[in-house]
């Protein structure tokens, strides 16, 4: 019993930084995971990755100009993300080019700009924080930002839920009954951007997309309902956060990768063991029903 306590409970009770990290990771799971579910269902999982690369130069620019401060880095990341999301979305909606190609084009432009800017100033140890995050050093500003993003995301998802589902399920139908299709698409891209920006404080720009996609991808294997999938993804995100933080605490691992790897483990287990996973699908069925 004592072992359980020292392993699982004590780190969070004794250390304020662990509590803050846990709070941050919880709020991120709450908002990023449902966004990830829709990202995945719209076959835009890799778009999330592209967006994460796209915000890096903005964050790097903020970092180069103002040092390791959350506000300029956040604003920089937001600007870069919004430009890329809007640009790619506009090209996809207004021309015959599909979103995957336009997104790739825009994020590559953004990424190369970012690399250029970083190289102007030379490398720095602090820049590693931008790239890989510091969930164990979340300050009040960062927690505030994550909380704000979390509230905004949940409110937007609540309000636009029906339109978002309709836009994913049958976009042409939505266009025939409402003009909300295009605005909802951009609102959704905006949510992706702000969640990635909120995530990069904790998990780094490269990995913040991990908490978005991996729990969602894992949840896809367990259920056939969007609502349940979102809840399941949130649950998996929370569990991954806890286990990742504990791993990082006990084994002195970097916290961001530890959290994402935990989510990755949940994904792999789902791929193999879930009702719709590899194992059961390959298993020879002995009996079948008459109808």
């Amino acid at each position: 019993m004592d072992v359980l306590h020292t392993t699982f409970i004590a780190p969070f009770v004794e250390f304020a930084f662990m509590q803050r990290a846990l709070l941050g990771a919880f709020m991120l799971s709450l908002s990023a995971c449902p966004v990830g579910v829709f990202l995945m269902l719209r076959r835009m999982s890799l778009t999330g990755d592209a967006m994460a690369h796209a915000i890096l130069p903005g964050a790097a620019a903020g970092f180069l100009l103002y040092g390791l401060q959350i506000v300029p880095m956040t604003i920089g990341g937001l600007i870069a993300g919004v430009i890329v999301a809007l640009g790619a979305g506009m090209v996809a909606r207004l021309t015959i080019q599909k979103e995957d190609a336009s997104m790739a084009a825009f994020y590559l432009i953004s990424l190369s700009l970012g690399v250029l800017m970083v190289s102007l100033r030379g490398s720095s140890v602090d820049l590693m924080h931008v790239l890989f995050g510091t969930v164990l050093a979340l300050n009040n500003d960062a927690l505030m930002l994550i909380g704000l993003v979390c509230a905004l995301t949940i409110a937007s998802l609540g309000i636009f839920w029906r339109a978002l589902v309709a836009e994913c399920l049958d976009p042409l139908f939505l266009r025939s009954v409402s003009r909300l299709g295009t605005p909802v698409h951009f609102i959704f891209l905006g949510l992706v951007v702000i969640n990635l920006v909120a995530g990069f404080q904790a998990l780094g720009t490269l990995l913040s997309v991990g908490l978005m996609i991996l729990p969602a991808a894992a949840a896809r294997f367990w259920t056939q309902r969007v609502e349940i999938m979102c809840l399941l993804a949130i649950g998996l995100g929370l569990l991954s956060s806890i286990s990742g933080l504990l791993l990082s605490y006990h084994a002195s691992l970097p916290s961001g990768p530890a959290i994402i790897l935990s989510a990755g483990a949940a994904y792999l287990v789902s791929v193999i063991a879930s009702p719709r996973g590899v194992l059961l699908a390959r298993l020879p069925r002995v009996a079948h029903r008459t109808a």
Partner: protein
Amino acid sequence: MPEACLTFSDLTLGYNCHPAVHHLNGTVRKGALTAVVGANGSGKSTLMKGIVGLLKPISGSCAVAPGTRLAYLPQQSELDRSFPARVVDLVSLGLWPRRGLLGRFRPEDREAVAKALSGVGLEGFDKRPIDTLSGGQLQRALFARVLVQDADLILLDEPFNAIDARTVSDLIALIKRWHGESRTVLVVVHDLDLVREHFPEALLLARQPVAWGEARQVLSPENLLRARRFHEAWDENAPWCEPHTAHAHDHGDANHEDIPTRADQRGAA
């Protein structure tokens, strides 16, 4: 004169300056059941898109009577069948015109959905994931969604493709019920016998309107021959269509007798 539900005035729809529907005039009166027929590429689906507003006219206009609720079943649905939704979720999309983005679904809404499902013979399918439906079952579910939409103007673009005979007759019965409820229905159909048997009116398109009126007259051998003679391919070097040459006369009523004569001027247009 009966009230108009749809008014086309000199409507030209197309893509990249090439018309797919060329100078269409006329009205669809309220409660009419019209089959839209023509060869591939004759502008049937384009006309549907124009009516829904998915495609802006190159010239002219297509006016839907104010306050008309419209339901549209496209030929190529963009429905994502891998999306985790149940049949009941799909059919409930049809509640959008009534409840919009935020309106709560009420008990009578759920009842309407259940009634629509049984109306298309899909009782007991409500909890089924949509990716387990067969093509015909999915088509019936989409008809159920149209039922739920409770629209005044219903546009169906080739709804009988790859549907078995029994389902076709079920769906025809449904369309006739809508007709009986004096809803305006336009259906793109390829099966001419089906049109002759079940549709009071028809519009024969060959980019230009060839004939429009009583179905059996429209589908006369002469009209069909004329419709077959149009060039399906675009001509990149086609001359620009001069305004007010091919469509100098106007006719705003449901009397479309004059269209065949105009088709003869096609060479000039």
